[in-house]
């Protein structure tokens, strides 16, 4: 895919790519200058909307449409929160932007703030990315010094304050309302919706939460226009997407691919994963981060990387955390790893998730330890039906989707763990109560 423009990853391999000097030498902040001098906020929003840019954090909601939900002239502040709480297992693409091109994210965040009439922007970075907090803070400082942030940016009269905030390390703070609670100093727990954050968000003000990768695509769209952006990708999934490729492939890493690329190409293509490691066959693939349903090898080789194609296969593009699984893997053990994660990360508010994630974790662990019961797979399915779609946020669903798809698609691997001998139906006392009384 040599003709695919590098919208997000152009500078990942440049020396000192994180500095303002390198960013500017590659045309950095020209989109900002263009927007502030030639365009108005509505125009920026329209451009992003017609570019068809979709949220890259996992949900894939059209970004321009989301921005349009912000009510105008409410007299309240409007906030942009850049979600850098990247914590989905198998996903490590935002950290590349934060590490190697923080100014791209900053310029995108300024443009996005401008588009939604916000003068206050927070960059919420997960606690475990401690060194990236310093990295981004240094870049923000550079941008302030150069007049890209602060009062009267580039003489346009537009003001924007940007604050880098370090989270305390909870997956659930990546959920947008969990993030808002955390940023407000509350416990990181998702809020009940409605109201949605675009109307009542941070400090009860209209708030947009966008993923790092989403805002990072905005400068290119402003510079080149929506039409150019739409030339990449598919009709309904335009543009490029970063995929973090992991597992037993020859060249794991973060790749920018045009949406619609066959998943097979990402795993086997010369420019990307270059195929499975020697001696290992492809067994399965989780295409969009640990929360999405797994694909068998056959499905993996027959699907394209765009929102619609993956949905047709019953899975999702998600965050682009592509986890390749080889034939050496033990599926129940892999599932157990994921369930331990969701059990650990459930915030504990909603009963089905609080109790269900732990119970699933325990049941699968028990199977692996050889202490399973004959009807455990049915019990697991029953739990899943009581967890899916019944909670405030989708963490519960995120635990259910891998569980169901792992067991459905690799059932033999799980059945092999069930006890071979039938357990006694019920306890039948062999000694009468009267006899017991005599002893």
């Amino acid at each position, binding site marked *: 895919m040599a003709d695919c423009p590098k919208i997000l990853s152009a500078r990942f391999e440049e020396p000192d790519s994180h500095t303002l000097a390198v960013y500017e030498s590659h045309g950095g902040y020209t989109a900002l200058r263009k927007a502030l001098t030639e365009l108005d906020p509505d125009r920026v929003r329209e451009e992003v909307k017609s570019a068809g840019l979709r949220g890259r954090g996992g949900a894939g909601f059209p970004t321009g449409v989301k921005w349009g939900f912000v009510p105008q002239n409410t007299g309240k502040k409007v906030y942009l929160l850049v979600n850098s709480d990247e914590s989905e297992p198998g996903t490590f693409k935002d950290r590349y932007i934060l590490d190697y091109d923080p100014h791209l994210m900053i310029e995108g965040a300024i443009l996005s703030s401008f588009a939604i009439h916000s003068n206050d922007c927070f960059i919420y970075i997960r606690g475990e990315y401690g060194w990236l907090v310093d990295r981004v803070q240094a870049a923000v400082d550079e941008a302030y010094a150069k007049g890209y942030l602060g009062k009267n940016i580039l003489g346009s009269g537009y003001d924007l304050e940007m604050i880098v905030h370090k989270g305390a390390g*909870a997956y659930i703070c990546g959920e947008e309302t969990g993030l808002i609670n955390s940023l407000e100093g509350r*416990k990181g727990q998702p809020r*009940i919706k*409605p109201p949605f954050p675009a109307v009542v968000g941070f400090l009860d003000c209209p708030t947009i939460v966008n993923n790092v990768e989403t805002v990072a695509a905005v400068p290119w769209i402003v510079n080149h226009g929506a039409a150019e952006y739409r030339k990449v990708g598919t009709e309904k999934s335009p543009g490029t997407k970063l995929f973090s490729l992991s597992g037993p492939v020859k060249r794991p890493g973060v790749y920018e691919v045009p949406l619609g690329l066959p998943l097979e190409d990402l795993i086997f293509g010369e420019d990307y994963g270059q195929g499975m490691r020697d001696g290992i066959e492809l067994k399965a693939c989780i295409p969009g981060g640990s929360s999405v349903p797994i694909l068998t090898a056959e499905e993996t080789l027959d699907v394209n990387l765009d929102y619609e194609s993956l949905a047709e296969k019953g899975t999702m593009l998600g965050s682009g955390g592509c986890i390749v699984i080889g034939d050496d893997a033990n599926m129940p053990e892999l599932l157990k790893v994921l369930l331990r994660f969701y*059990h*650990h*990360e*459930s*915030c*504990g*508010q*909603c*009963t*089905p998730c*609080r*109790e*269900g*994630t*732990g*119970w699933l974790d*325990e049941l699968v662990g*028990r199977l692996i330890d050889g202490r399973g*019961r004959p009807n455990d797979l049915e*019990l697991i399915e*029953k*739990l899943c*039906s*009581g967890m899916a*779609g*019944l*909670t*405030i946020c989708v963490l519960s669903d995120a635990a259910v989707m891998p569980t169901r798809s792992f067991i459905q698609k690799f059932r033999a691997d799980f059945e092999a763990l069930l006890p071979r001998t039938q357990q006694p139906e019920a306890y039948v006392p062999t000694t009468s109560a009267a006899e017991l009384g005599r002893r």
Partner: protein
Amino acid sequence: MAKIIVDGKEHECEEGQNLFQAIKAAKGRPLPHFCYHPALPVAGVCRMCQVEIEGVPRPVIACNAQVKDGMEVRTETDRIADVVQQILNFHLLHHPVDCPVCDQAGECALQDQYMNYGLYEASVDVEDKIHKDKVKPIGELVMLDAERCVLCARCTRFTSEITKTHEMGIFNRGNHAEIDVAPGRTLDNNYSLNTVDLCPVGALTSRDFRFKRRVWWLENTPSVCAGCATGCNMTIDHSEGTVYRCRPRPNVEVNSYWMCDEGRLLYHRLHDEDRLRTPVVAAEEGPRTVDWDEAYARVQSLLTADGGETRRVAVIASAHATVEELHALGRFADGIGAAKIGYRLEGSEMGEADDLLVSADRTPNAEGARRLGWSQFLGEELRAQASSDTVLLVLKNDFAAFDENGVDLLSAYAGVVVLGTHQDATMDLADVGLPVLSYAESDGLFVNEKGRAQELHASIAGPESARHAVVVLAELGRLLGKEFGWEDPAALRRDLVATEAGWGALATGIDRTGVLLDVVSDGAAIGAESGSEGGGE
């Protein structure tokens, strides 16, 4: 107005109304729930009140939905039944199921909802349940068992949104989440026992009530708190002549769903050692227990001067007495030409108001007394009336407790007859003490500081020898050759409505939330009470 269809039946409600409430009104019973509470912000965490809404693919929780005109809701489908059962199953997963030793048994939402919506084959087979704090006192009055908690967050929402004292929180995450008090804090605000009422399960129990009585033995009598002029509505829970606890009874006009700890613990006074259980007469060695005949004989002798003529009487009212008792006392005084002194010692029985419920006026019926024309302050008149020719009759008023000169003042009278409930400071100075029924033992009305008349209902019978104050007043009238003709408080209320201005609102009956009386200006009331004859017209 909006129309919704609930399980096939049309129902009228307000557009935008909370759907949980609308369904409750439509079906006459609430959806299964733990976390929803009408006076707390919606948490939406127990996930029990799931319903299907036509056009919405997934079940939604009713507590966080609003009524839209034409909405079609289903609450009894197989899918909903299955979902609710499963969520109950989750709630019970790590619950200790220790009902036999749990004091909540009998009024536990987990028990009730399992019987209503559960009844499934238990699939719970975790090898070891998660263990959390048990029998942990988190405040002077509240005991925590975190294992029984369903994490509905009612208690934490109450302390953060209602009292704003923030003692409690949910700590840790996932299935290790548990409620507790914040480090270094105790649940010690004056509303702490509301968390026990709010707790749908046995996680928070009252240290005052737990293990005293299984709740299914309790009878529940609606009443009003006698602790201050707010008049919080409450339920008196009692059994076999003993009050075991008082709980707030919802009344959005008065106390919402709450009452203060101080008020709800007042019931202990009913059973105190110093409760006056029989008539007493003063004797050298202290009060001597007598029967009613002897007590009345003593009253008679006090009323009769050395020359054989009948002495004058002066009466003291009380802001602790009911409207009916005060009306009877007024009628009694007018009937025998007694001086009416007032109901409160200057500055007494006042405290600090808080910003939730507690009123600065710590008497329950000062407004009732005022409306009946009683002058408030009694000190000056008490002095003025004092003479060896006058017998003082006191109704339910312990003013001597607030005045160090009580002894001197009272000894200037020819005699002191006290109708009271306890052997208190005033009773100690009485020549004759007559045991009467308390607020918890008789029907009656209190008027709160906002002019709302609210009904008390007799819960327990009271001490065997105690009589209702209005009955005692009628009997005292007979001693003085005056037949009043009332036999119970109901007769006095009828008389009040028929003869006094300002009480007409009572004529059509009074429901459980009370009735707001017509506004009576201070000037009118003061005008009516002046002098010793007026009992209001």
